[in-house]
């Protein structure tokens, strides 16, 4: 098992081994990973296009599956949105980790003299950004197609909180799934039972904002989302090492 000590930094700057430099090294590692994913994606655009096309297709299917007439539209919108996000999110999570594994980047990243959790945060942040980009495109499309105003601050805050929770657990689980034989099929099976509270809470909160419920009815959901996000980011941070050991 690789030892994650900042030995290389010690060689370069022998006098500067203090908390500050180690932490900024940590942050630099995270931003390096995020930057790598973003620039790779900018060039190939394969991840985003796949997620986006899939999301739009799901919305299209829902159009025929559910009677989205003016009256039912309001009640059904948040459900349609979150099912779309959940499924296209799975695509993104799978691809993101599969790329690392297949191109051997995972081993390279593991050799870096930095705490393993930086790898987790870097990938999670990258996954989050991709998910948010897809959501940012889906929202206006849906708004236009169904003449529903989705641009309320409360709604967008909930989508952000929900995506954070989804990606926090999803990144951890996809790291495991990608190392299994049943790779692509396994991630949804692992993820959905565990991420259910996020989906329920985000769905109900979005619905509350869309239908103009009182904040007092929506707060429990937002609190649940925040609690979930905090708990699972902490858990993932603690166990991630065990998932990438060689």
């Amino acid at each position: 098992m690789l030892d994650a000590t900042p030995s290389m930094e010690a060689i370069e700057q022998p006098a500067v081994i203090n908390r500050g430099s180690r932490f900024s090294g940590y942050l630099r590692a995270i931003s390096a990973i995020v930057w790598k994913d973003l620039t790779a994606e900018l060039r190939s655009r394969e991840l985003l296009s796949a997620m986006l096309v899939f999301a739009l297709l799901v919305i299209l299917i829902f159009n025929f599956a559910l009677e989205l007439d003016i009256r039912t539209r309001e009640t059904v919108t948040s459900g349609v949105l979150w099912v779309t996000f959940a499924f296209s999110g799975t695509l993104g999570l799978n691809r993101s980790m599969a790329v690392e594994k297949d191109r051997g980047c995972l081993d390279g990243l593991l050799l870096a003299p930095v705490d393993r959790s930086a790898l987790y945060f870097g990938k999670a942040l990258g996954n989050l950004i991709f998910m948010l980009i897809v959501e940012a495109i889906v929202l206006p499309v849906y708004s236009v197609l169904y003449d529903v105003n989705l641009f309320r601050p409360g709604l967008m805050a909930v989508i952000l909180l929900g995506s954070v929770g989804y990606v926090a657990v999803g990144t951890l689980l996809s790291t495991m799934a990608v190392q299994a034989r049943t790779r692509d099929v396994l991630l949804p099976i692992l993820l959905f039972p565990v991420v259910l509270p996020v989906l329920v809470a985000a769905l109900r909160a979005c619905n509350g904002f869309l239908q103009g419920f009182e904040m007092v009815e929506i707060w429990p959901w937002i609190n649940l989302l925040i609690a979930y996000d905090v708990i699972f980011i902490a858990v993932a941070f603690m166990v991630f090492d065990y998932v990438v050991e060689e």
Partner: protein
Amino acid sequence: MEPIPKTLKALNWITSALLVVALYLVLFYAPREAVMGDVQRVFYFHVSVGWVGGLAFLVTAIAGGVYLARGDHRWDQIALASVEIGLFFTLANIISGSVWARPIWNTWWTWDPRLVTASVMELVYIAYLLLRQGVEDPDRRARFGAVYSIVGFISVPITFLSIRIFRTIHPVVIGSGDPAAMGSLNMDPKMRVAFFFSLFTFTLIYVTLLWHRLRLQRLAERVEQAKRKVLSA
């Protein structure tokens, strides 16, 4: 095959006897409930079985955690053994809950937080086994199992909470009774005896079955070793 230890043999007998007594208490000693009739008796075992399912899951998560910390694969054996028991008992919980619901609320399924959470927990167990099946390397298999069992275990109470909130904000009226009352009966003393005795009996059943399943696991590993020896010879 290693001979059955005396304690386990004794446990077998004791547990079987306790189960018979529990059946007597539940079927005859406890009075018939006024509103729901005889089907209410299922409740005693329904809760006990559900309790065993949750306990089994907790044991798996803790054993997984200890395995991660210490690397001793015997803890992984415990985790795996416990999951199987949990899977069967949680299934029994779900089915008995459904059977209980049918005459009371005239539906085979209620979106009661407990029933839904049990189902989600069952799905997590199944996912756990599928995860293990998909990983070749035994050490990695154990580690991944441990991580997932911990993540899964933490998520289950949160799932329960989310559905509970869902039900309080959007109560679903099924039939005449409040579905949230499922399990919160006013129990008279005889019922209490049957209830707690069942809980105790099933806990002991869990321990006994866990022990047996562990022995099976150790035997399976011996067979694996023997296979490898024969293949390499």
